[in-house]
């Protein structure tokens, strides 16, 4: 992907930052409008659609029965994939997954996996023989900024609404997938010299490094990722770390409301 650094945009963002303003008029830590819908895909066992301003993401959950790994005979598995497909923006080109796409998928995966929200032991059907493999796929349909948070939100909401299709596989009754926690990601971008929350498309184009923080229900951190060229100080990080907790709590409430 060609990186075109629009000098004029960078200057504009810098001037706005000096006045503590943003290109779309938001405050430094203000989120855009977010809408979450669940059970939107007939053929998925769990699904969610996130409309995060102009960013649109679908997530779907499928199940398979597999043989457990020999060293963990009583554990199922979770696979989480998120791909940057060319449908989502002019800038994404067809071809094998780019490094950007791989990073997105792995960061979203770690946030969900490391929170421990799914107890892998509960996915066991017959120890050593049959366990559930949970496959969460996240599909970005429109990228107008901050797809990381939108993907993470759609992903956990889809898992939270998923029904294990035990009847179809002839291994008991259908039942909800046990998801005990709601990890939430909050993403920050350095724009005009200071970090802002929930960057929009222009802020991503004219901004510098980004930081992704995934927090659990208890405020513990489960995943961090710094992306792109750029550096920051520990005090800068401490400030956004604190803000991330607030953002996560608000979004977690939204998920809880929608899935129940």
């Amino acid at each position, binding site marked *: 992907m060609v990186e075109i650094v629009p000098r004029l945009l960078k200057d504009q963002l810098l001037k706005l930052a000096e006045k503590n303003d943003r290109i779309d008029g938001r405050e430094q830590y203000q989120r855009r409008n977010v809408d979450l819908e669940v059970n939107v895909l007939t*053929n*998925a066992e769990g699904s969610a659609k996130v409309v995060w301003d102009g*960013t*649109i993401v679908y997530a779907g959950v*499928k199940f398979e029965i597999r043989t457990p790994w020999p060293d963990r005979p009583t554990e199922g598995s979770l696979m989480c994939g998120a*791909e940057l497909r060319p*449908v989502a*923006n*002019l800038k994404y080109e067809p071809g094998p997954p780019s490094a950007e796409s791989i990073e997105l998928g792995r960061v979203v995966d770690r946030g969900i996996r490391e929170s421990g929200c799914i107890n892998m032991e509960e996915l066991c059907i017959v120890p050593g023989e049959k366990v559930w493999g949970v496959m969460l796929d996240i599909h970005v349909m429109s990228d107008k900024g901050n797809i990381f948070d939108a993907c993470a939100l759609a992903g956990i909401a889809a898992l939270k609404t998923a029904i294990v299709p035990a009847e179809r596989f002839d291994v008991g009754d259908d039942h909800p997938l046990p998801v005990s926690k709601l990890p939430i990601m909050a993403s920050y971008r350095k724009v005009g010299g200071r970090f802002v929350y929930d960057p929009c498309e222009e802020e991503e184009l004219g901004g510098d490094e980004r930081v992704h923080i995934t927090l659990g229900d208890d405020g513990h951190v489960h995943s961090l990722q710094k992306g792109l060229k750029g550096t920051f100080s520990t005090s800068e990080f401490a400030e956004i770390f604190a803000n991330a907790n607030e953002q996560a709590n608000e979004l977690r409430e939204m998920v809880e409301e929608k899935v129940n």
Partner: protein
Amino acid sequence: MGGYGDVELIAKDGKRLDGRLADELRPITIEVGVLPAARGSCRMTWGLNIAEVAVYGPMEAHPRKIQRPDRAVLDVRYNMAPFSTSDRIRPGYNRRSREISKVTAEALESIVMVEMFPRSKIRVEIEILCAEAGTRCCGITAAAVALADAGIPMKDMLVSVAAGKINDVVVLDLDKAEDNYGQADLPVGIMPNTEEIAFLQMDGDLSPEEFDLAMEYNMKAAKEIHKLQINALKSKYDGGVE
């Protein structure tokens, strides 16, 4: 086709399992401008199928070797989301999706005024989010609307629809069960004003008479679907429906 003619798909009263008559379509909705990042877009539901299409361009065609000196090329991708079917699909293009992408591109090139944009490329991204038989028709029909939404000049609209054969009876618009046990499938792409054919595939078994009836059903259905296309475009641009 599965070709299992012995599964009963039509009741004695002539109605199909979901209550439709032989020449009846599944319910269809069409919406435009649904993907903010795209220049033009369309969401179509057709029975349980869901397709969303984004159009980007015209833009310079690269790599160079795909450029045509006298016209634009359509770079079309038909893709099924991993969660769109009963069994998960591995991400990435397979032979089926590459063939569908090719014939879809050729059908759309037949209606887009490609001569207006030499050396350029128009990207059409068709994403199938839920698949229940008939996704290629759904994708082509939605793609034509998305191209119109993007303001790309076109000679005519394009409607794709399929008739088929189940229990030795020609019927319109096979659903999942009918497709699994059906005997033939005849998807076409029709220009509703000229009635010309821009897309045609078929597999299974049809006598010449059955073929004619299937084409008749398709022609009639194309007119119906065309109205829904027009309404969707109007409701965006005129703020209202026909």
